[in-house]
């Protein structure tokens, strides 16, 4: 039916419908793509010099921001946010903006290839028929229990397809992972949410309505959970208007992150004491309010916490008073505070502060974002402990074939888990990577998926939006290279493999699969649009970039006993030896996968202004005691590994902590990424908190001088910071 529907017909339809914007849509396999043409040749629906705009979904992280991409004659020119999309309301982050440098990246995988030897560059190009046959054979010739899928946190439609496949055929359920999720300690957050609020999902913190925000290491202005949505919340919190005053924001963390740099107060706590500080604030705030002491905070000794956390008792009292007296106070637990051996207790302590503030389900408080359409539950990515189990199964030879899509475990996982070593015991590895990343190098075959801007799909908004959102993706340009949609490859291979595989996935192509999935929404009330039949629904779905409810659907956490239970924040344990605690953080501009986009590389890091490289941040006083200057290369030695990085004298970090960004240090992944900077995942040992997240902020390390220098490119004047010149003493 969709095949009979031409682009012209659609334009007529769009003109009748809610076409206030000039956003268009592809309309089915017959007119799936607009092909790239010379600017001199006009396709039928273009006017000279006029652009065509397509609504789709960003896949640079899993937040599901809606995008509108400006195209002209089959070229994608500019990315912007979809104006009414409930996640991002017309805005994007820098990574979303630079998505086009992924699309037109010179180092994409151009054809399906077979690798001559794992780890080597040499490959031979295959045809897609042979590639599909290879996948079919892999499905057919192995026991279902020997077939595994490792996937990224996006896109959801592919995850749903493989989940369906697993349910019918008995292959292993797909495992999802992403370094961003690990640095956000998502498992700990959802576990603590289950303990305190009775629901194992990601709480939504309504910053926009809060008067006072206490964030315990949440880097919500950088990469945390849904950064565009949280930046909007921050902006609304800060903005005074006739109904509210300017919100006050305090950040507790050992290093001043980009987020902390926006705080009205930055409190440099001793790493691992964030939970104790939260408990102490709870106790002092309860006292200030004159309420009977909740059991959750009764056991804590504020004076003792002051000593252990390095935060003066007066400061704790003052902040607790502020929290207690605010009409709308909010407490937010972030990734690094939870990435400690005691992270689960910390998360519970911080979430419980919200129960004390009595903000649950209220504007300016904590709620749960409504579940997305087509969503039975929150699909949490695997914790690092679960990834360790997965890798142990790989090492034990349990998997005869491993499919990898949308994630780069050989780069993103701690080297100590030894994904590369374990992969040697996997019979066959098939990567669907769009880029030649480290994991694709370990794969026997790379069958490249289209870039996300050339792809169909959908993504659920797990958090960040007030409404239930299914964000839709459609190709904004035709595929640039000889790539093929992974969904199409799996559908075709399932038919070739026959049996259960064929019955599990009876779809002609990806477009039909997506239509089938979203068809349940056709009659659904309360949405952005309604349509009498599937073709019309799909046309609107593409035009608007998804489907969402018009009404907010926050769910109020139920926490009758939150204040009435004991919270155990044990003393943080640190792995390894050395005089410094290492704090790895995700590069705010690169994220986990931005290093191959040249304009992201050339953005100045928001706090240091460094471009194109990795640095280690050291307090200037400590550095001078050690005889270190800017750009001196040091060796960081952890229990698990070592790394050489140039020094950046960072004025806003505890003297006993050093910090290093994650995002660089690729050995593959194209010319802009490979051989540049260092990867702190090399330093991380396999230590976990009670929820199974990695204790990435709980490592002690040593520093050794190398005697070498490597000059970092910085946007800031080298003469500017503390009067230092080019590495000279001042």
């Amino acid at each position, binding site marked *: 039916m969709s095949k009979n529907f031409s682009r012209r017909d659609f334009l007529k339809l769009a003109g009748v419908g809610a076409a206030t914007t000039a956003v268009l849509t592809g309309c089915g396999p017959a007119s799936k793509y607009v092909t790239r043409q010379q*600017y001199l040749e006009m396709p039928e629906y273009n006017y000279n010099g006029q652009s065509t705009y397509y609504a789709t979904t960003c896949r640079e992280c899993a937040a599901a921001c809606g995008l509108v991409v400006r195209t002209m004659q089959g070229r*994608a*020119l*500019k*990315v*912007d*946010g979809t104006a009414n999309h409930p996640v*991002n309301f*017309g*805005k*994007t*982050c*820098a*990574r*979303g*903006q*630079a998505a086009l440098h992924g*699309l*037109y*990246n010179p*180092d*994409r995988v151009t054809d399906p290839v077979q690798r001559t030897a794992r780890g080597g560059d040499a490959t031979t190009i295959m045809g897609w028929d042979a590639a599909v046959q290879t996948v079919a054979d892999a499905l057919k010739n192995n026991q279902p229990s020997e077939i595994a899928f490792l996937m990224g946190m996006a896109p959801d439609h592919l995850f749903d397809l493989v989940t369906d496949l697993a349910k019918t055929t008995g292959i292993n359920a797909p495992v999802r992972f992403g370094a961003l999720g690990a640095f956000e300690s998502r498992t700990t957050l959802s576990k603590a949410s289950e303990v305190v609020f009775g629901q194992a999902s990601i709480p939504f913190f309504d910053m926009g309505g809060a008067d006072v925000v206490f964030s315990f290491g949440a880097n919500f202005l*950088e990469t945390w959970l849904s950064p*565009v949505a949280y*930046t*909007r919340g*921050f*902006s609304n919190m*800060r*903005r005074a208007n006739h109904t509210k005053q*300017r919100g006050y924001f305090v950040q507790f963390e050992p290093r*001043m992150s980009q*987020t902390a*740099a*926006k705080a009205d107060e*930055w409190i*440099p706590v001793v790493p691992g004491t964030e939970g104790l500080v939260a408990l102490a604030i709870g106790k002092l705030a309860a006292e200030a309010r004159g309420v009977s002491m909740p059991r959750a905070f009764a056991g804590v000794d504020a004076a003792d916490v002051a000593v252990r956390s390095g935060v003066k008792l007066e400061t704790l009292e003052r902040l607790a008073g502020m929290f207690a007296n605010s009409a709308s106070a909010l407490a937010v637990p972030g990734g690094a505070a939870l990435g400690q051996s005691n992270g689960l207790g910390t998360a519970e302590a911080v979430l419980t502060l919200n129960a004390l503030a009595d903000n649950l389900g209220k504007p300016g408080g904590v709620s749960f974002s409504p579940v997305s359409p087509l969503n039975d539950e929150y699909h949490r990515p695997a914790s690092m402990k679960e990834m360790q189990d997965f890798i142990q199964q790989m090492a034990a030879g349990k998997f005869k074939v491993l499919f990898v899509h949308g994630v780069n475990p050989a780069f993103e996982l701690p080297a100590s888990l030894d994904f590369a070593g374990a992969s040697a015991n996997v019979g066959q590895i098939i990567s669907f990577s769009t880029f030649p990343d480290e994991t694709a190098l370990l794969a026997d075959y790379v069958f490249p998926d289209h870039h996300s801007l050339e792809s169909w799909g959908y993504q659920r908004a797990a958090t960040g939006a007030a409404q239930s959102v299914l964000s839709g993706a459609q190709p904004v340009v035709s595929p*640039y290279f000889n790539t093929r949609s992974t969904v199409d490859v799996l559908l075709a291979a399932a038919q070739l493999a026959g049996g259960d595989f064929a019955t599990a996935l009876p779809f002609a192509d990806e477009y039909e699969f997506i239509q089938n999935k979203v068809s349940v929404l056709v009659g659904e009330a309360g949405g952005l649009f309604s349509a009498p039949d599937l073709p019309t629904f799909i046309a609107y779905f593409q035009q608007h970039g998804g489907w969402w409810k018009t009404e907010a659907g926050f769910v109020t956490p139920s926490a009758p006993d939150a204040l009435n239970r004991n919270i155990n924040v044990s003393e943080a344990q640190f792995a390894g030896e050395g005089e410094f605690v290492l704090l790895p953080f995700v590069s*705010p501009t690169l994220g986990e996968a931005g290093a191959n986009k*040249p*304009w*992201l*590389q*050339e*953005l*100045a890091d*928001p*706090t240091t202004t460094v*471009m*194109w490289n990795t640095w280690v941040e050291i*307090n*200037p*006083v400590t550095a001078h005691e050690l005889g270190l200057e800017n750009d001196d290369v040091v060796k960081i030695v952890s229990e698990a590994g070592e790394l050489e990085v140039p020094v950046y004298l960072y*004025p806003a*970090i*505890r003297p006993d902590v050093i910090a290093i960004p994650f995002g660089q240090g690729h050995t593959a992944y194209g010319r802009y990424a490979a051989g*540049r900077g260092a990867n702190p995942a090399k330093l991380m040992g396999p230590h976990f908190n009670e929820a199974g997240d990695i204790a990435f902020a709980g490592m002690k390390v040593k520093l050794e001088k190398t005697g070498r220098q490597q*000059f970092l*490119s910085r*946007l800031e004047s080298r003469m500017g910071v503390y009067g230092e010149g080019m590495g000279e003493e001042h």
Partner: protein
Amino acid sequence: MMNKSNIPEVGANFAEGEQGKWGMVIDRDLCTGCQACVAACSMENNVAFVGEEDSGYGRSMHWIRIERFWEGEYPEVKMTSQQPVLCQQCGHAPCEPVCPPFAAVHSQAEQLNLQVYNRCVGTRYCANNCPYQVRVFNWRDYTDDRLDPALVTLKNQYNPDVTVRRRGVMEKCTFCIQRIHKAQDKAKSEGREVADGEFTTACAQACPANAITFGRVDNPESLVSQLAGQNRGSKLLEELGTLPQVTYLNGG
């Protein structure tokens, strides 16, 4: 050549261009330093990236940068409110009178500082004279795909509304004049005026904190005029008499 008597004294009252037309308000209390505006500007305006070595020598070509300074020492250290700095589109621009071939000229129609790339001969006098350091120079051919084969694919993204610059040419923020013209053409063809908020610059459009507002400063009803009228506003180095068209709202 310019008559010397036409060059006003620094700080002199300068009627021409005083009113301004297009202007911007940037709220430093809201700017998070996230760099989305920098990325958006670069993608919209075909701004070249220069690589690690050249950017280390200060040759990077950002048309907008986020300034931040450190105050005090640990633990009493603060980062000053982030300040996005772009061409201030001065009503009385120090870059203009020093350009021998009139590549840096004032647009009477739009009250903007134009940079006419095909007039620029690369004296770089304008950059020397700009107190805001917002002019960037093409020290090499960063956009020539014969020199960098990577650009063969990357250049598909170039915005056909904006010139691709080459070696020896000075460039800077244009207030996205291509967007201004497009909106004006559209309004004209529909027989109406451009409405406030109908379009905006690439940086303002991207900004997730909504820190940047763009519009007509000569219309007291526009959002940008309303915001600029708040008592938090100040202009960068306005004591130089440059009549900048960007108003900064101070941080908390």
